[in-house]
C-alpha cells in the first residue's frame, strides 16, 4: 500500500514539474525581411554546405567499412566483434555530416 502511494506521489511530482515549466509562455519570434541578394547567398551556401559535407562523410565512412570488411574476410569468426566498433565509428563520422546538416537547416529556415 505504501509503495503504491509512493509511486503515485512521484508521478504527481513529475507531472506538476513538467507542466509548470512548460506552461511558461514563449514570445513569438518575427521574421525580418531580408535583402534578395542575401537570400541568394543563403540558398547557395545551404546547398553547397550539405553537399560538401556529404561528400567528405561518404569518403570517410567508405574507408571505415572497407577496413571492417577486410577484417571480416580474414577472420569470419570475429565478425560480431568487428561489426560493433564499425557501427560506432560510422555513427561518429556521420555526426560530423549531421553538424553541417544542422547548419544547412538553420540557413534554410532563415530564408
Amino acid at each position, binding site marked *: 500500500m505504501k509503495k503504491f502511494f509512493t*509511486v503515485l506521489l512521484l*508521478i504527481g511530482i*513529475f*507531472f506538476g514539474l*513538467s*507542466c509548470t515549466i*512548460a*506552461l511558461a509562455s*514563449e514570445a513569438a519570434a518575427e521574421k525580418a525581411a531580408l535583402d534578395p541578394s542575401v537570400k541568394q547567398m543563403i540558398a547557395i551556401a545551404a546547398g553547397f554546405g550539405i553537399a560538401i559535407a556529404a561528400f567528405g562523410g561518404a569518403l570517410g565512412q567508405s574507408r571505415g567499412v572497407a577496413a571492417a570488411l577486410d577484417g571480416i574476410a580474414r577472420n569470419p569468426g570475429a565478425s560480431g566483434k568487428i561489426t560493433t566498433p564499425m*557501427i*560506432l565509428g560510422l*555513427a*561518429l563520422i*556521420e*555526426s560530423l555530416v*549531421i*553538424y553541417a*546538416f*544542422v547548419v544547412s*537547416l538553420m540557413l534554410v529556415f532563415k530564408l
Partner: protein
Amino acid sequence: MEHEQFTWVSLIPFLKNLPPHVSNAIMVSIILLVIVVLAYRQLKRPEDDLVPSARFSFRNLMELIVEALSNLVNETMGPSGAKFMLIIGTLALFILFNNLSGLVPGFSPATDNVNTTFACSLTVFFMTHVFGFREHGVKYLKHFVFINPSWPWPANVLLSIILCPIELIGHFARPLSLGLRLFGNITGDHLVTTIFFSLVPFLVPLPIMFLGLFVCFVQAFVFILLSMVYFSGAIAHEEH
C-alpha cells in the same frame, strides 16, 4: 516547411496547450512507466525463477532488454558497472522510445527538438563531473592540468596554462556534440520521411522507414556508449 499533422496528444485536453515536444515526451514517459510497472509485477511471480518460459512472453521480452543493457554496461564499465546502470538505463530507454515513437503515425518524436536532446546531454555532462568528484575528491581537477614531476615547475605551469583551455573546450564540446548528433539524426530522418511521403505515398517510403528504424537504435546506442566512455574517463585511476 510547415505541415499540420494530426497527433494523438491533441486528443488529450490538458496536454494540448503544451509545446509539442513536451507533450509527446510526457506521453512516451507515461507509456514507459506503464510498461515498467507491468514488468515489475512479473518479477514477483516465483514459479519462473530458474527456467525461463519457452514461448515469447512479456517477461521474456523485458528480460531480454534488461539483460542486453546490463551486459553492455558491465562490458564497458568493468567491475564497478552496477552503479551506472540507473542513469544509463533510464537514458537508453527514454531516448530509444522517443526515437521510435517518431515512426508511429500520430506521434512526433520528442528528440526532434534541441531542448530534449540537450537536456539528456547536459545531464550526462553534470553526472560526469559528479562521478569524478565523488571518486577522486578535489584531485579530480588534476585532469585539467599538466604535471610532470621530473620537470622544473615553470615548465609545468606554462604547459598547464596552454593545456587548460584546450581541455576545457574539449569538455564543453562533449555535451554539445552529444545533443546535436541526436537532434540532427532524428530531425533529418523525420524530414526525409515526410518528403518521401509527399512525393510517392504508397510503397517508396518503406526503405526510408527501415533506415529510420536502424538510425533510432544506433543513435540511442551511440549516445549511451559515449556517455559510458565519458564516465569511465572521469573515474579512471592512473596506472603506471
